[in-house]
């Protein structure tokens, strides 16, 4: 659980290489871990962005958006996380289907990378599309390029690559290419938009859902999502699901539920910082 390396990938986004031989030995693309970094801390789910079975390490990429993730990003090389549980969730089934479009928005690159890598290794033609708010927020571009047959970028402000949403890139790709499967990971609205495009072109799409979680082991049901009209537990049945069947609206609403408390926590945390 010791952090053996840490580096900044973009403003507010840190990459950690963590010693976790048992988890590394079992990790598959699509799996995630739950960590706690201090006694009073929440249980925070993070995707296993990469793993090295020989060195016994896993890679985590964390974006500081709230109190917990910001505090995690303060952790230094040499320190240890208090608790690390995994690998959790269903492994993403890697098959050879032909051409796969890998679409990531923002931090979604981190969870997407191990899948793209495995899909590439399985002999698929991988067309990657990565979107971010602005150029400096694009992460893991080299890693993604190494496992893609084609890669394109988009930024919301036009500072790099296509000026617009990454889902526009997806549309353009589907217009000219024969794509057999789409994998999309990113903020929920982006995955919802990608699903809409996929449906238009009648291409199957897999999305990776980030429902709020507590235990991550199927014990609380807090992570429930509606897929194909049925309630599923994101932590055990997912986190990857058939995008065409996901009720994104419900997911977005459930993610907003703790907004007030989150802001309170963040506010206090800023006050504490200011006091120092």
């Amino acid at each position, binding site marked *: 659980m010791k952090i053996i390396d840490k580096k900044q990938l973009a403003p507010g986004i840190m990459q950690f290489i963590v010693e976790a031989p*048992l*988890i590394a030995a*079992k990790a598959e693309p699509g799996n995630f871990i739950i960590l*706690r970094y201090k006694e*009073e*801390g*929440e*249980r925070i789910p993070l995707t296993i962005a990469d793993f090295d079975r020989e060195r016994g390490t896993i890679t985590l990429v964390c974006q500081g958006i709230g*109190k*917990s993730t910001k505090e995690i990003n303060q952790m230094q090389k040499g320190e240890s996380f*208090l*608790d*690390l*549980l*995994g*690998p*959790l969730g269903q492994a993403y089934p890697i098959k050879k289907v032909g051409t796969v479009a890998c679409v990531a928005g923002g931090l979604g690159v981190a969870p997407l990378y191990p899948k793209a890598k495995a899909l590439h290794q399985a002999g698929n033609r991988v067309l990657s599309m990565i979107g971010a708010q602005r150029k400096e927020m694009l992460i893991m571009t080299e890693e993604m390029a190494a496992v893609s047959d084609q890669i394109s970028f988009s930024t919301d402000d036009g500072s790099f690559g296509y000026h617009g949403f990454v889902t526009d890139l997806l549309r353009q790709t589907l217009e000219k290419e024969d794509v057999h499967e789409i994998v999309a990971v990113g903020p929920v609205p982006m995955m919802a938009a990608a699903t809409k495009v996929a449906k238009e072109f009648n291409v199957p799409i897999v999305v990776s859902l980030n429902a709020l979680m*507590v*235990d991550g*082991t*199927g*014990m*609380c*049901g*807090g992570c*429930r*999502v*509606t897929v194909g009209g049925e*309630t599923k537990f994101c932590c*055990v049945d997912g986190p990857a699901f058939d995008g065409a069947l996901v009720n994104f609206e*419900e997911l977005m*609403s*459930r993610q*907003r*539920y*703790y907004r*007030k*408390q*989150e802001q*309170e*926590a963040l506010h*206090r945390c800023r006050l504490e910082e200011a006091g120092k």
Partner: protein
Amino acid sequence: MRQQMPKQDPQLRRENFNEVALGFTSAQAQTEAQRCLNCKKPLCVQGCPVEIDIPRFIKLLAEGDPEAALAKIKEKNSLPAICGRVCPQENQCEKLCILGKKGEPIAIGALERYCADWGRAHQSGEQLPEVKATKGKVAVVGSGPAGLTAAADLAQMGYQVTVFESLHAPGGVLRYGIPEFRLPKEIVDYEVKYLEKLGVEIKTNFLIGKTLTLKELFDQGYQAIFIGTGAGLPYFLGIPGENLNGVYSANEFLTRVNLMKAYKFPEYDTPICLGQRVAVVGAGNVAMDAARTALRLGAEEVSIVYRRSREEMPARLEEIENAEEEGIIFRLLTNPVRLEGNETGDVTAMICQKMELGEPDASGRRRPVPIPGSEFALPVDTVVVAIGQGPNPILLQGTEGLALNKRGYIEVDPETLMTSIPGVFAGGDIVTGAATVIAAMGAGKKAARAIDRYLTERQ
């Protein structure tokens, strides 16, 4: 006359998480112990799932020797401070006590608790029997009462025991389910420490079936495995609107509060969203715990919504009374049919149907049937679903060759508790379905003996 346990005043306690029942004073314990007839053929013992020598421990207590009384209890029950607090004595030992015929059975549970609390206060450097772990390695999966008991017994028999627990803290339901005001976590910590003193190693953050499989445990040199993973999968009602914000399973609600200490938010980071009007569906111990927790978190009105009548409520009598004293509203013969929400997806109302009791059903209880045209809306902003739990699928699906019964629980040989995989034993809620702490402990004990026999015979 049967002694009454002093309790915190209902008006005060509904605002704090401190323990409700305060325990007998030593004078009360004396008086109560002296009432025992020390029956030659004590019926009480027949009601005890772990067969504590009840008259003997009570006699020792009456003679003024709580230390010896505690030692007597511990011969059979390694977690008396817990059992003295949460066992349904009214259905077990106290139900059969001969004095119960006149309506005043001995308060056996309160006396057990008294002895255990005396021990915690007076035996800081408790002498532990020196046991060398020479008999081999055993793995225990799950650290609820079943796992903890199996581990303690096996360690005492001379095995090197490792407990694997998926959460970050041991104790199972004792940790994440039963609230502080009924079972202070300090007591769970104390019992876990005792286990560690016996040489048991506890590895948290280990999800067996994912982090390691049973097969890998054998490969690592464990010669036998005990599975005590409990019934941790929450059931939902399956009615429309159940995924609205503000609808919790009791497991999530209680885990946020007990394990993650959301009642101390923002000192602790895990939040809980609680409205002013809370409805808890169900009427078992879990429902009572959730309702009383909601009250303590500051809800204005908390009700229990239950489709049968008072007689069928499965919770312990004491807890129902406690809940009533604290001001929980009981909406009986009332069944939720759907939940309604607002534009942001937050729950606002529970649409209920009034019920009446009809013919007895398979469980022998009279079946509730809806009264036509009786629908009404109960305004709510938080709903807690406490209608039962099932077996968690992770370990079961990750283990090839593990036979399950029709209900999805692990099938075992009733004599040895061995599963369909040789060397793998199971007990507690994962075999019986949600039951009691003492039944889980009993299973842990039985399995420990069977594991010892199994490994001894194989030598």
